[in-house]
């Protein structure tokens, strides 16, 4: 199976690889997937507490090229977005941007899950209720 140029680009030059301080109050961490399934993504966001805008995002991913590209792309998209905007990122946007084939759609789903998990971690830390699917859907609308 041939990878798209965009997947190859993100795989060869992954953006925003690394870690943020997961103990910090303004950092949200999402860890999704499982080693047994061949994919683990850790996605972190740092939120500007005054503006509510994501000021930084980092990832580390154990997985195939599409999984790495999906998480790399997600960190690019997250920066500069408000939490509500971030919650509206849909896995199919990632599929479209990276031209993922059907067998790799699960990689984009995992990236969306990682984004939501990171947002929820931040919200929990800051005494906000967790996102529900409905809230995510309305943010998406």
């Amino acid at each position, binding site marked *: 199976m041939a990878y798209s140029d965009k997947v190859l680009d993100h795989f060869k030059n*992954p953006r925003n690889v690394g870690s943020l301080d997961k103990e910090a109050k303004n950092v949200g961490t999402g860890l999704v997937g499982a080693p047994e399934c061949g994919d683990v993504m850790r996605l972190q966001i740092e939120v500007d507490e005054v503006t509510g805008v994501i000021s930084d995002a980092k990832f580390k991913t154990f997985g195939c090229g599409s999984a790495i590209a999906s998480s790399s792309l997600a960190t690019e998209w997250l920066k500069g977005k408000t939490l509500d905007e971030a919650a509206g990122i849909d896995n199919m946007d990632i599929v479209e941007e990276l031209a993922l084939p059907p067998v790799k759609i699960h990689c984009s789903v995992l990236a969306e899950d990682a984004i939501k998990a990171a947002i929820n971690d931040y919200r929990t830390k800051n005494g906000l209720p967790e996102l529900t699917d409905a809230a995510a859907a309305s943010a998406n609308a």
Partner: protein
Amino acid sequence: MSQRRLIYLDNNSTTPCDPRVVDTMVPYFYDKFGNAASRSHHFGWEAEDAVDYSREQIARLLNVEDKEVIFTSGATESNNLAIKGVFEMYAKKGNHIITAETEHKAVLDTCKHLEKAGAEITYLKVQEDGLVNLADLEAAIKPSTILVSLMWANNETGVIQPMAEIAKICEKHGVLFHSDATQAVGKIPTHPRETGVHLMSFTAHKMYGPKGVGALYVSRKNPRVKVTAQMDGGGHERGMRSGTLNVPGIVGFGKAAELARLEMHQDAERLGKLRDRLQAALCQLEETKVNGNEGSRMPHVTNISFKHVEGEGLMMTFNQNIAVSSGSACTSASLEPSYVLVSMGLGDDLAHSSIRFSLGRFTTDEDVDMAVKLVTDGVNHMRELSPIWEMYKEGVDLTKIEWAAH
């Protein structure tokens, strides 16, 4: 502009044709194009002579009679013919077949097919080192058992089964023994008669011959084995396999067998050293595991898990330069990791982290040096990206984490 040669370390998938094989084949596409079944003219005689000679070359490699070699389209067909053919031919004697979980799909799926036709199949588990447990095998045999089908060497790990011991158990209980020897023939000595194997599948393209031609060895005496043909037609190959013979392919197969007989030992010795060097160098990396019994293994194969790195992602770091294969899910549409490694008791995580390196006649020292460098760099790069490598390095017990399986 010079383009660097792509390094091919996937010889268990297929081998390149030896140029000496191709040279012998070429005339059979041009002047000598006859049908080996045409008994009435020169073109047919010439083709038949060529097929006979090839059959002798193959029989000599196996130390068997030439009439015991039945040509097919490849090992998948040979496996189908052997297992389905025995099941149908010996239906009165019983319906039970014993095989193992680590067999090739051509055997497993054939057995699954027969289950629908009334066969009872026992799929033996293997030990952690990939070997079949002989006590388990013997315990599985019952009065209705007609066939044991176990591979000579495994395609993913190179592990060689204890063929002579398995044959003794089959002999003791009067059960036929078939072996898928696709990965072994032409690489190590495979003498079915001396070993006690009654049917043996193999193919040309794993031994530097062409694709699309294989054979089934069928013992003619002590015991005289018969298989029911799976295709109806002109009754070629002693009635066991109808269809016009692929004469150029068979000629190439014969030449490949002759070369294997003459060069197998020197190839195996050279490749064994190269494989050992490759494996030792890659195991300098932290947290690696060699999969399969290293004492009973094909000389040109090693299967290594690089912990906390996913195999397909790892391959992407070097697949512009090196061709290997991975036991990870994502290489196939199934998303399941290698069933062979899982059957050996490897966790799914380690199965996802595995890479198979299979060397061949045309692998050079420089190829191995380059592979060591590129794979080492790739593993280090992927570990930099891996959250579970970071957690492992921080001393987190990964087994204690509640992963959200998906």
